[in-house]
């Protein structure tokens, strides 16, 4: 890991537009969630557990990663004569080190943003006298941290590609893994490829892609299961390693090494 790249990733957030986005994001969701709770009579007890699941959900880590980590990875900054260096290093830097530093910083950033949001939510709950009804378990914290590392690795991989390629790649992966299987359900199944069901074959392909795009981990499965199923854990590690590996290979093959 390189300290300069690591710290510069956080420094990148110190721009007015990003700070405004960050403040709005941290404040908006908890405020919207607390508002209806404030309307309830003081004696009424409300189940707040679903909200813990909501904040620590893999989808939340994914959203935060795309919102805040993507802007701090090496996007292409094109001038007429090609790409340029936004940050100059006095010593040569391994591109793998660059990728790992960005990944680590990005993961901590995701955890930090969600932790800030949770903190603000807990403060609001205490203000309306419902703080005691909200508690976060160790498994939720572990899930949050692990899924933040997974989501940040995906974002690092997508943004290791030149900007346009990265966006197209992400859009294509997202469409094929989530939207296409849903759309296939409404198309009549009349195409058969030598006895093989066309729709099922395409769906199976989409499922494999989805497994590559979205493979969150739930620690609870390994603590409270009657039989340990290893596939989700292996998929999670495999995806993270693969994302980072692709990111490094792509960075290795880009015309110029630049950083921001």
């Amino acid at each position: 890991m390189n300290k300069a790249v690591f710290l510069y990733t956080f420094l990148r957030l110190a721009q007015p537009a990003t700070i405004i986005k960050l403040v709005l994001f941290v404040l908006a969701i908890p405020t919207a969630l607390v508002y209806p709770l404030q309307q309830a009579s003081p004696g009424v007890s409300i189940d707040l557990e679903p909200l813990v699941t909501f904040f620590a959900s893999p989808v939340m880590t994914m959203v935060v990663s795309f919102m805040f980590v993507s802007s701090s990875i090496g996007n292409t900054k094109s001038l007429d004569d090609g790409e340029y260096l936004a940050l100059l290093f006095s010593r040569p830097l391994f591109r793998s080190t660059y990728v790992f530093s960005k990944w680590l910083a990005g993961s901590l950033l995701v955890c930090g943003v969600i932790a800030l949001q949770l903190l603000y939510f807990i403060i609001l709950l205490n203000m309306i006298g419902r703080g005691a009804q909200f508690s976060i378990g160790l498994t939720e914290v572990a899930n949050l941290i692990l899924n933040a590392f997974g989501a940040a690795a995906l974002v690092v991989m997508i943004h290791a590609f030149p900007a346009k390629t990265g966006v197209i790649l992400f859009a294509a992966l997202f469409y094929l893994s989530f939207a296409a299987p849903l759309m296939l359900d409404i198309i009549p199944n009349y195409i058969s490829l030598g006895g093989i069901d066309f729709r099922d074959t395409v769906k199976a392909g989409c499922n494999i892609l989805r497994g590559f795009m979205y493979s969150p981990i739930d620690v609870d499965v390994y603590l409270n299961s009657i039989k340990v199923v290893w596939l989700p854990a292996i998929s999670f590690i495999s995806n993270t390693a693969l994302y980072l590996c692709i990111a490094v290979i792509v960075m290795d093959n880009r015309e110029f090494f630049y950083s921001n």
Partner: protein
Amino acid sequence: MDKARLTTSTPVWLILLATVCLGLRTIVWAIESSQRGEVTGIKWNEPSKIDLVGRDYQSKLILYYFTSEGLESCKTMNNTSLLNKDIVKLVNEEFLPVKIENKQSEENTDTGKLKKELQQKFVVFTFPTLVVSLPSGKEIETRNAYAGVSAKPLLRFLEHCQRREGYSRGLDYLAHAKYAEAARSFESWLSTAGDGTKDTIDGALYCALSYDMLGDNNKVRVILDKTLQNKRYSKDRKWTEPLAELLLGKLDGEGLIKECDRQGYREPRVYYFIGMLELKHGNVAGAIENLRLTEKGTYTSSEIYGLADGQINVINQVNVGKN
């Protein structure tokens, strides 16, 4: 040049790790796919092998698990949340678990037809979907788990269904005009539901209505007084107060409709409550007219429509009996 090559070397250990993990993933996936169905924490029943129609009213709740062979999200659910110790214990002890697996090979068989009927009955379009119903077949709650559902939310869903059982039984009795049973079910449910559940206010109103139909005004007052003190959200006030005033005799049907118009919306339940009170006062034609209007509210509500439809059926049966 040398330096440039140095900085672009991909770490061998990373390539190895990614390759080994990918290989391991494929092997584990192949092994786990071949073992599909062997791990049976939950003792699932086949729908064709149990009596789903003539079941005793007091027996266990039914948990239907609608799944489809070969679907990744179903496999994930089978291998994760459905193997959770707490869920396995709860389902085996407190529910009658019925697995409805969509299989192409069964498409034109009796079992396949039965499965399709159940899918249509509970309006299941995507897999996996979980439905909990009363032994009588009345649905309590449905949970679609297209993107998979992890253990904690699933456990919470099952516990919620258990807590809601008394409420659903009350609705079932009310739809069959069994007011005494409905009042008892709602009242016993209210005593354990606390004030924080989503249905507490509706349950209290239905309970008060059941007692009102039995002519027990004292009970109506006691239940409504308690309910009016505890409100979950501000919008509750809009519903609870006018309907409670109707049951307490402070408002009549016209007054209630005026109040709803003043608030800016009419709900199907307004007509249901007015219809029920018309019925209580012996105005059967007025009751049927209002009960039929439950379809025409601003918001559609299957719960209210089910109650109104049930009540109309009971009235018609009584009329047929008289003739």
